[in-house]
């Protein structure tokens, strides 16, 4: 029953989709194309990401990750968070489950925010692609700004979300 409940929004949008498909076939087939494309992307990228995070969770001891990315990890932790986020593949929402495992393993909150920020906007493969599509100047300026931006956002979040609230967020992910 609980499983079924979680799928209700999905059934609703499928229902709306079917109505659109019948009423506006042109939009319907365009939407189908986009949806199939996204599903293909998801089917390709999501499985390895989840397998990796399963192994990360089971095989790598909390102490190891805490040492490199935890409260006392300093600059090393900052750099590692950004590198891990930037080397990633896949849409931003695929980063959340990984962040969740990081919380479980005691990664510092600001480092998790940097990781999320880097994943969202400084991904290396995407940068190369942006460069070829929109030009070196455009891509470089945006990369430079984004790096500053993700630091600012991570710092503000770290300040605004009190240690107690951070603790609660971590507990949500256990």
């Amino acid at each position: 029953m609980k499983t079924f409940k979680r799928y209700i929004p999905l059934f609703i949008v499928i229902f709306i989709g079917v109505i659109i498909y019948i009423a506006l076939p042109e939009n319907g087939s365009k939407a189908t194309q986009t949806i199939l494309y996204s599903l293909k992307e998801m089917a390709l990228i999501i499985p390895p990401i989840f397998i990796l995070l399963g192994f990360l969770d089971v095989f790598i001891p909390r102490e190891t990750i805490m040492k490199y990315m935890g409260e006392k990890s300093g600059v090393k932790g900052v750099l590692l968070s950004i590198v891990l986020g930037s080397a990633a593949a896949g849409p931003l929402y695929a980063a959340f489950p990984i962040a969740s495992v990081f919380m479980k393993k005691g990664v510092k909150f600001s480092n998790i925010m940097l990781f999320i920020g880097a994943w969202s906007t400084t991904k290396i493969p995407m940068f190369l692609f942006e460069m070829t599509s929109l030009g070196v100047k455009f891509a470089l300026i945006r990369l430079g700004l984004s790096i500053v931006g993700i630091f600012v956002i991570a710092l503000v979040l770290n300040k605004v979300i009190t240690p107690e609230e951070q603790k609660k967020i971590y507990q949500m992910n256990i």
Partner: protein
Amino acid sequence: MIQTFILYGLTGLVVFFGFIKDKEKTKKAFKKAWKAFENILPQFLTIIIVVGLVLSFLDTDTISQYIGTSSGWLGVLIASSIGAITLIPGFIAFPMSAILLQNGAGYMQISAFISSLMMVGVVTFPVEKKFFGIKATIIRNVLAFLFAFVVAFVMGKVFGEL
């Protein structure tokens, strides 16, 4: 494409060494992977369908009409809002942006669109909230949305639109 190969290669290696090291743990890792996946599967699917449906109502002409060079800050606001609510993969968004630029969209508007597309997630809000709680999720998204205007400002200066 290359990144996908690397990702699979890496995963293959991890699974291989994991299996050699500890069969029980490997089994457990797969179980965890499946559980985490199934946990957000309905949301993933819902998001993908919603985005597909919304995108089917937008085309290049409409977009450049509203986010052209002369559209100014209102155009930036429109562009960053579109970026915030849609969820287009980068390898579609970049070529699409290049086409939009050729069709009269401004650099300010396009940079705001790309920035908020990548950093702000309105449709993924329910998923993000599940992991980070409502407060952190709102703050992160609001800041990222504002940041798109900073990017637009700098791009406007650099490309002579301001």
